[in-house]
């Protein structure tokens, strides 16, 4: 592995980690599409700031972008607040307006510098190592690595400091407001982090794939855990895995690195979607298959319990009468009885059926649970 390869992977991994942290809260707040909006509209902020300072590496570009990111959130809120359009339509109205303004300005005023639309949309991760940060004649490494590391650090510190506030305002904003933990402030703070992160990330992966890094890893982690802390950690892990895996996929296919990273993230999501324990499609199908036989066994046990020890038991609790009494097909009834016997819930004496102690206890607890 060459130094350049290593640097590209480091930039990709740090970018993915930085995106996953605020992205997790966007997913939990059901604001995933806002990252798409911010990722696009910050172009306007970058162009406007560039027109003022005339320098592509100025930190003011980040400030300009963050401000326009916030403007996007406020504008969406205002449009939605009119009650004339819903939230999704408000997002769809605001960001193309700001983005297209940015595209027009890029084309009109910045043709002498290297700020073209392709780079903005798709990023150019492969070239990032060639833009070095040099101080006092020392080569400190790729500028993008520094930028994204600082952004990652800011996100981490903000998250550690305001973990409890972010959690409460996401879960129950009304209680947060009642307790004086200003949910509006926390919301705009989070949106500032999203904007700043998107600005930093877009030089590496472009405005479109920022969304993939912010939303897909947390959406994947959401399927895998019930704990917010674990979800945040897993989001970062999945993001980094997508970055590194994507790099080598691009290497093997000779394809776009950013595209491969997003594709890898999507593949990881698909895996979780299918195979996540408890929530995945496979687990759900297996659960349904199991319940298909478990529930009839419970019904059988309760039926036997209801008539146990009563004169009618000799008639009711017989395998050849289940079809008449429970309305079951004879073949189905036999299968249920066999399964219940195998599980030690039911004993049979010829055609007469009897509950075992275990079956009786099970039937009683099923009844108690529904009472």
């Amino acid at each position, binding site marked *: 592995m060459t130094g350049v390869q290593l640097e590209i992977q480091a930039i990709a991994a740090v970018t993915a980690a930085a995106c996953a942290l605020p992205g997790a809260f966007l997913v939990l707040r059901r604001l995933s599409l806002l990252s798409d909006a911010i990722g696009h509209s910050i172009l306007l902020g970058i162009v406007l700031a560039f027109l003022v300072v005339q320098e592509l590496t100025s930190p003011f570009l980040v400030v300009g972008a963050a401000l326009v990111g916030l403007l996007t959130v406020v504008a969406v809120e205002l449009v939605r607040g009119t009650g004339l359009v819903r939230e999704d339509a408000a997002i769809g109205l605001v960001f193309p307006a700001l983005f297209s303004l940015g595209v027009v300005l890029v084309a009109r005023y910045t043709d002498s510098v290297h700020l073209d639309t392709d780079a903005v949309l798709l990023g150019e991760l492969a070239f990032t190592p060639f833009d070095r940060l040099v101080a006092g004649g020392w080569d400190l490494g790729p500028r993008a690595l520094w930028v994204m590391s600082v952004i990652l650090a800011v996100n981490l510190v903000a998250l550690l400091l305001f973990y*409890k506030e972010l959690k409460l305002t996401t879960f129950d904003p009304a209680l947060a407001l009642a307790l004086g933990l200003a949910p509006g402030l926390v919301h705009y703070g989070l949106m500032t982090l999203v904007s700043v992160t998107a600005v930093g990330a877009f030089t590496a992966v472009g405005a479109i794939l920022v969304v993939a890094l912010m939303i897909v890893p947390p959406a994947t982690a959401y399927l895998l855990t019930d704990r917010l802390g674990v979800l945040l950690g897993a989001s970062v892990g999945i993001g980094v895995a997508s970055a590194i895996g994507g790099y080598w996929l691009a290497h093997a296919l000779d394809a776009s690195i950013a595209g491969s990273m997003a594709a890898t993230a999507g593949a990881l999501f698909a895996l979780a979607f299918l195979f996540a324990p408890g929530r995945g499609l496979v687990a759900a199908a297996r659960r349904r298959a199991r319940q298909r036989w478990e529930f009839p066994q419970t019904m059988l046990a309760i039926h036997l319990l209801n008539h146990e020890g009563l004169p009618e038991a000799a008639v009711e609790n017989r395998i050849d009468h289940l079809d008449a009494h429970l309305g079951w097909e004879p073949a189905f009834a036999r299968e249920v009885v066999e399964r219940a016997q195998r599980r030690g819930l039911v004993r049979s004496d010829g055609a007469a059926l009897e509950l075992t102690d275990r079956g009786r206890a099970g039937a009683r607890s099923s009844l108690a649970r529904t009472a």
Partner: protein
Amino acid sequence: MSTRDGHAIEVTDLTVAYGDHPVLWDVDLEVPHGVLMGVVGPNGAGKTTLVKAILGLVRPAAGRVSVLGRPYADVRRAVAYVPQRGSVDWDFPTSVLDVVQMGRYGALGWVRRPGRAERERSLEAVRKVGLEELAGRQISQLSGGQQQRVFLARALVQDADVYLMDEPFQGVDATTERAVVELLRELRAEGKTVVAVHHDLQTVPEYFDWVTLLNVRRIASGPVDDAFTEENLRLAYGAPLGFLGRNGRPPEEGLVSE
């Protein structure tokens, strides 16, 4: 922090409107210390809005609210809030104990993280509402009644003087309802003031000692024996009220519970 003079809650000339559609018209209300008050009224009467206005969650168009003689913002920590169960996302990745612990966030203030003391206090509240075996459970796996009890436990750890509850009995089973009533009575016995939005007229005299009838305007407010009359109920719910019994008490059956 509270004084025993005056009222636990005082609402003066409160009007709340969404646009120019009034939800509460010029409501005056005084809630004495240490009462267990039910707020009843038909759908759209502004019951939830009243609670939210007291908590500063909606901005009034006119009027004032004071809690323990002060503006709400000054006494936040003395007030606990139990929102409607449907107001949060129960799929949120968090546990029963964690949600209960959120009741301490106000006292902790910004940045400080909950520690052992908060954890123990929360566990105690979880035990008090009978959920100790489910403390580590993800909250979507709870039944409606259990979710309501989580909210109650969260209000208990706030250790407040005034409790505002928005339909604490909604969608709960009979066992939970009895347990909740028991808890509310305990709170009253400790001298706390409890205001609960309620739907079931039939249980008002049994559960509460104070009642407010609301229908955009305040219809009546006072001790249940004085205020919960057939006349007032007719004013609040509109005529005819065939389901009311003779002495102003609803009969045993056929009652609407919205």
